[in-house]
């Protein structure tokens, strides 16, 4: 990766950002439904969700592509962010729930006499918004500190992250956690006083997701340009050399792990009001594995690749789960295998791969002795 941003990259980036933040929502808001250019409310909502998943992919690439840490539990942090905002959304339902009570429905159903004390501050949006950042960050900090200090590397680290998300999944399934058990949170009504059912609210959430994605991209891209980014890639390629060059590799890994967790948490918080539901199934290991596929398909170590991978694979998923729901896992697994075997650098790497192939053909031809 070049150590400076080229003019071309800057222009392309600005065009993409303008398209995502201004043009697409503009087409939704200001064109008549009959226009061929019209973007439907359904599409805006769907693409808003995809953008959130793309944010996770960017964070995962920072871990996997740039630092060599394969996290198989990235959707845990996504879920924690989602739950943190979900608690606020639950409290804002007020008496509009099924049971017409001040308590969230599941609490009435489970016979809670009053709101548990740790729920009370989540009535404030700012408190919830902060929790979206610090809860995933703190979990990543504790887990990462222990794992990296104990020199847990490679596949062992991956397995532990998977175990972590699975353990959290089982924990969140339990009603005793006071977070809605297996039903999680749903039936949200308002956010900051705006009706979530209103297309304008959904459009704003889409825009917020697009801005968050671009911010995550810019942060990670900036990181790759700093000396930190160089050390990060050095850890990936030769951790011993890094250690014996005086860098505390564990601290660098911890920083990246926490940053990726926070990025995922923010994505989860934006995702939940757009899907209208968060429950423990989001923490199932298979969800995090899907995130791995997005990054692999798009091309790890490129930042733009994982975004394209997340958007592409999820579009495919939306189509496939309707057209042939039974075959989706097969399709996903097949796609992963094809990419790993034939295009290890993903979609973004394909151009280079084809170029190298042509180059080789050409040089072989010129090397052929004349008959």
């Amino acid at each position, binding site marked *: 990766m070049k150590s400076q941003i080229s003019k071309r990259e800057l222009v392309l980036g600005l065009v993409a950002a303008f398209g995502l933040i201004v043009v697409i929502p503009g087409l939704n808001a200001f064109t008549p439904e009959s226009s061929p250019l019209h973007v439907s409310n359904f599409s805006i909502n769907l693409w808003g969700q995809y953008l959130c998943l793309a944010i996770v992919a960017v964070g995962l690439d920072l871990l996997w592509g740039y630092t060599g840490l394969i996290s198989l539990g990235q959707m845990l942090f996504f879920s924690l962010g989602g739950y943190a905002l979900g608690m606020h959304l639950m409290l804002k339902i007020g008496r509009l729930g099924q049971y017409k009570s001040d308590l969230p429905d599941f609490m009435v159903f489970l016979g809670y006499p009053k709101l548990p004390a740790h729920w009370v501050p989540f009535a404030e949006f700012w408190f919830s918004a902060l929790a979206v950042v610090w809860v995933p960050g703190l979990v990543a900090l504790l887990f990462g500190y222990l794992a990296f200090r104990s020199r847990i590397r490679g596949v062992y680290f991956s397995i532990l992250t998977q175990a972590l998300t699975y353990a959290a999944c089982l924990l969140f399934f339990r009603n005793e956690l006071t977070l809605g058990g297996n039903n999680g949170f749903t039936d949200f009504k308002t956010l900051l006083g705006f009706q979530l059912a209103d297309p304008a609210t959904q459009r704003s959430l889409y825009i917020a997701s697009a801005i968050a994605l671009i911010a995550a991209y810019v942060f990670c891209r900036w990181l790759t340009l*700093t*000396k930190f980014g*160089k*050390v990060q890639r050095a850890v990936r390629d030769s951790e011993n050399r890094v250690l*014996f060059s*005086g860098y*505390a590799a564990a601290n*660098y890994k911890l*920083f990246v792990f926490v940053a990726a967790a926070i990025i995922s948490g923010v994505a989860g918080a934006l995702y939940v009001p757009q899907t209208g539901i968060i429950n423990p199934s989001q923490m199932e290991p298979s969800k995090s594995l899907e995130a791995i596929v997005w990054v692999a398909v798009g091309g790890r170590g490129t930042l733009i690749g994982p975004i394209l991978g997340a958007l592409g694979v999820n579009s495919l998923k939306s189509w496939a789960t309707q057209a042939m729901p039974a075959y989706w896992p097969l399709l996903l697994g097949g796609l992963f295998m094809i990419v790993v075997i034939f295009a290890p650098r993903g979609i973004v790497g394909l151009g280079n791969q084809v170029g190298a192939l042509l180059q080789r053909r050409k040089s072989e031809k010129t090397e052929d002795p004349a008959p």
Partner: protein
Amino acid sequence: MKREFLLTAEGVSKSFDGFKAIDDLNFHLEKGELRTIIGPNGAGKSTFLDLITGRTRPDTGTIEFQGKRLTGLREYEIYRLGIGRKFQTPSVYNDHTVYENILLGLEGPRGVWASLFQRISKACDDRIHEVLKTIGLESKAGHKAGSLAHGQKQWLEIGMLLAQNAELLLVDEPAAGMSDEETAKTGELLVSLAGKHSLLVIEHDMVFVRQLGSKVTVLHQGHVLCEGSLEHVQNDERVVEVYLGRKGKATHAAT
């Protein structure tokens, strides 16, 4: 009368699953000295470097550097005291350019926060080019380290140590995989560094050891068999036996 040593190892032992890799090792290195360690395979040469640099910890005994105990410190802490290490197999950052490899070796702050906001100053840039010139890789500055030949990678790693400006350089088989000409140049470089730095060189190639012309320590079965000039060492009966594998009446119970 006690002399001041830069590096001392006293009564150091280290076992791996019952195998005594280092056995009651005593070793002293003076400031500015160039020392060569030789010994047959499995004599514990690389393990000794592992013990100094904190990769493994001794079971018993102490290792001190400038009067500071190294035992129990982490790799990067030991590095920060001024000990640099070149590995046996060249270990450079293949995906980084030659220039960036040296940059990452350059002395300076090593913390996470510092690395986020650090700029490459003119002085740093000059220093990097100076190092590249010393190791003869100036024309390769923009190339990826992965594209270098084996010998050039060895030099690049030595360059990273130079950039670090460490007090003590631990150099594990620097001439492995080099042509005769490259080997000679490497020897010149190491000899020229002595005095300003202290060096501990592990080597197999006897021509190269002769070129270094330093005091030689022979390791065998984890402890020092014999120490002195190359001539002295080569004429030592025990050394001949160890190297040629002759089973004689001579003993290797040196203590």
